[in-house]
């Protein structure tokens, strides 16, 4: 190989503390180096031309530039050598600025070090190989996981742009948490009035295929070419036949079933449609309560159904969809407040969660929108809200702020004063977090116009006294203990990632934080991307946020998908792992450790099993290379021989 070495002076940045000329002269002693020189600004236009000229003049086959960090200008120089006809991977950059000239003023030592760094680059370059990208076509369909408002927004935006959308929702209806809300802050918009039309759009858009009551079973493939197994859970109702008439739900004799949609306030039937505006509006049997499944006979619904849609024999079914990108919008669950023994641990019927209270407020809820306490159905005279239940509490493993509770408390208290003007509303708070457009004004209004009584301090204990509850707290502004006799206590439970979020993350090979929120690729600059190419995040699955932020992220994820799909192919990075089949012993350790599922089995004609790298999935981390016992799998451009060459340049 004929190697050219260019030592950059970087003005005085390098030349002040490194004798660049000596480094260039020394480089001529290294094996294969046929040309070496120093230059004022190698990255400048004339600097690059100098390299290109030297390549032609000296018939150079590989280039080493000793300059700044490769994180700075590697791409620049690769383009430069490519223009001169070399493969862009026949280039190495020695970092003699950030790692050398800038961190010591000892010219002699720096010069020695720069010589070593150049030598290492030369030795490595001698093992470099030309590498070439390949191009793979993109399947322009997108999968949206989760049918809450964030997922709905992403799906509609993609469909609007003409993309085929597959939406998967775990529940039997889309709408998510927002569908359960009565009103939204700070505008007091009716939640179902603004979400309802969007849900209908999803149902009516020809580009969107909805799998409700379904979950992700498996994910394989890579950006542009994912293959997704979707488990359609058994509903025991043929949805093609079901018209959503609701006759079955009226006649079902199992009437004491847990009502998930109403958060356990009130009951529902074993066969049910969660709420009147459900999309799809189809019935679904809860096998845990259905008399036929629990006791062996009944089948009332089957006898009554006008379209004969009931299928007791139905089983889960797996269907496969192929897509090119995935938007994850799995949302959240609410913290389980029963860990707070001092608040009754879930034993007092009149200590309820905020979402339960939301259902009490809702006209479509179990009390028809009348605020009635669960124990005796009386209208409460005194209600206390406790904030930060499962938020900002390290002792229950939830040190983060859920971000929405301060606002929904203000909303609920305001609504309560509207519904029941005689009811006193008290709010225990630590800090009020209202950093949004018109948010703080809203909280002020609750106090100034609606007379909601806020007191600063956590509550220590709640205990019953007669048919009322004593709330024992502190007002830290006064430095005294306070007591409130209440009819109803509302716990403002915080947000946690939805049940199963970690399992899904592992299928998708995306990372999550300590709590299970999905990790974005960069907290500032890549907020909806993940480190798995082609998988995007939207909504609360990434971290607590309110409706406008979730909707914004849904649109952002859709925009990312559209940008990806505006191309027909994807260029792959050739710095990926590669298997030398003759040396592969088929132990599968690389397959076990690969964080991206980028390695699969390949059966040769003689029946032997070998590892095979999916170039488009491989991210080039090299974990397989370090793990492979016979080193049959090598990370291109960072092979064992290349690293060993650098080690050998220094030692031995």
């Amino acid at each position, binding site marked *: 190989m004929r190697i050219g070495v260019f030592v950059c002076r970087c003005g005085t940045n390098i030349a002040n503390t490194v004798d660049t000329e000596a480094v260039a002269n020394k480089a001529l002693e290294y094996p294969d180096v046929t040309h070496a020189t120093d230059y004022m600004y190698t990255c400048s236009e004339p600097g690059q031309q100098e390299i290109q000229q030297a390549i032609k003049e000296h018939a150079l086959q590989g280039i080493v530039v000793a300059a700044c960090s490769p994180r700075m200008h590697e791409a620049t120089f690769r383009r430069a050598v490519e223009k001169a006809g070399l493969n862009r991977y026949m280039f190495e950059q020695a970092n003699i600025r950030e790692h050398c000239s800038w961190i010591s003023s000892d010219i002699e030592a720096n010069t020695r070090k720069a010589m070593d760094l150049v030598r290492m680059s030369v030795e490595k370059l001698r093992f470099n190989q030309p590498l070439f990208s390949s191009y793979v076509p993109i399947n322009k369909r997108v999968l949206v996981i989760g049918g809450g408002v964030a997922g709905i927004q992403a799906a509609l935006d993609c469909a609007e742009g003409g993309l085929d959308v597959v939406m998967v929702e775990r529940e039997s209806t889309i709408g998510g948490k927002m569908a359960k809300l009565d009103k939204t802050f700070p505008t007091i918009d009716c939640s179902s009035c603004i979400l309802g039309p969007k849900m209908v759009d999803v149902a009516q858009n020809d580009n969107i295929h909805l799998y409700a009551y379904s979950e992700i079973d498996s994910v394989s493939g890579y950006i542009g070419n994912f293959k997704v197994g979707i488990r359609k859970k058994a509903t025991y109702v043929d949805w093609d036949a079901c018209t959503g008439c609701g006759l079955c739900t009226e006649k079902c004799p199992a009437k004491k079933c847990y009502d998930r949609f109403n958060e356990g306030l009130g009951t529902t039937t074993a066969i049910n449609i969660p709420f009147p505006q459900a999309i799809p509006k189809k019935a679904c049997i809860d096998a845990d309560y259905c008399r036929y499944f629990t006791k062996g006979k009944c089948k009332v619904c089957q006898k009554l159904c006008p379209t004969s849609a009931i299928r007791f024999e139905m089983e889960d079914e797996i269907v496969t969809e192929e897509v090119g990108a995935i938007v994850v919008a799995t949302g959240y669950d609410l913290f389980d407040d029963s860990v707070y023994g001092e608040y009754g641990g879930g034993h007092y019927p009149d200590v309820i969660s905020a979402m339960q209270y939301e259902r009490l407020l809702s006209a479509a809820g179990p009390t028809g929108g009348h605020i009635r306490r669960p124990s005796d159905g009386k209208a409460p005279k005194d209600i206390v809200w406790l904030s930060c239940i499962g938020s900002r509490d390290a*002792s229950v493993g939830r040190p983060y702020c859920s971000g929405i509770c301060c606002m929904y408390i203000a909303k609920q208290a305001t609504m309560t004063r509207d519904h029941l003007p005689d009811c006193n509303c008290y709010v225990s708070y630590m800090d009020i977090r209202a950093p949004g457009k018109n948010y703080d004004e809203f909280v002020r209004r609750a106090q100034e116009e609606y007379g909601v009584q806020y007191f600063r*301090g956590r509550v220590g204990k709640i205990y019953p006294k007669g048919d009322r509850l004593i709330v024992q707290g502190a007002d830290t502004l006064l430095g005294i203990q306070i007591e409130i006799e209440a009819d109803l206590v509302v716990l403002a439970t915080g947000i946690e990632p939805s049940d199963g979020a970690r399992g899904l993350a592992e299928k998708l090979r995306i990372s999550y934080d300590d709590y299970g929120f999905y990790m974005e690729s960069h907290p500032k600059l890549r907020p909806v991307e993940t480190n798995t190419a082609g998988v995007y995040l939207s909504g609360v699955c990434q971290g607590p946020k309110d409706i406008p932020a979730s909707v914004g992220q849904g649109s952002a994820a859709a925009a990312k998908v559209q940008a990806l799909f505006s191309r027909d192919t994807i260029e792959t990075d050739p710095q990926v792992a590669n298997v030398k089949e003759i040396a592969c012993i088929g132990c599968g350790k690389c397959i076990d450790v690969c964080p991206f599922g980028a390695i699969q089995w390949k059966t040769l004609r003689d029946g032997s099993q070998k590892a095979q790298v999916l170039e488009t999935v491989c991210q080039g981390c090299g974990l397989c290379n370090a793990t492979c016992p016979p080193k049959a799998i090598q990370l291109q451009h960072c092979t064992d021989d290349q690293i060993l060459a650098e080690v050998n340049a220094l030692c031995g």
Partner: protein
Amino acid sequence: MKRLHLLSLQQTCDKDFIHRVEKESGQQVSKCYQCGNCSASCNYTYVYDYPVNQIMRLIQLGQKDVVLQARSVWLCANCQACSTRCPCNIDVARVMESLRIISVEEGMVSKKKIKLFYDEFLSSVKKHGRVFETGLIAAYNIKALKPFTDADLGARVLKKGKLELHPHNIKGRKDVAEIFNRFEAYSKNRDID
């Protein structure tokens, strides 16, 4: 309770005191974000001059004199309600305990009678190996200048045959006394450090 009028955060902040409390208690006081759950849960808030959360705040601000002279420090019964409910996992009761220890070392005990009772208790233990309840209460009441407190109970206790008239001296009381002596020597050495 003395009302604080103006606090100069620079001039009165004793950083050594903060470190001392943290070292003694093994707790990081800066973790406290003043939610007030300790005060809400404490059965003694109503007799305190500064509720627990304010004690924590005063420690954060390095207000050594105010904290050590607070009645609250010695009225804390160590019932652990605060520690159990603290969302920041601070062992608040341990912090209060540390303040008692420091206030003894600094000679700034706010509730002298409680300290007196503790002293009498320990001297009883040092002398006999166990607490001689009758002698302890008698000695305390005399020294605290309230000889008739609980006098109503005395007669009833006597009637039930529960009042020991003589102390039980354990055989190893010398060993116990030695522990006290070694502790005193240890404390002195520690002060020098």
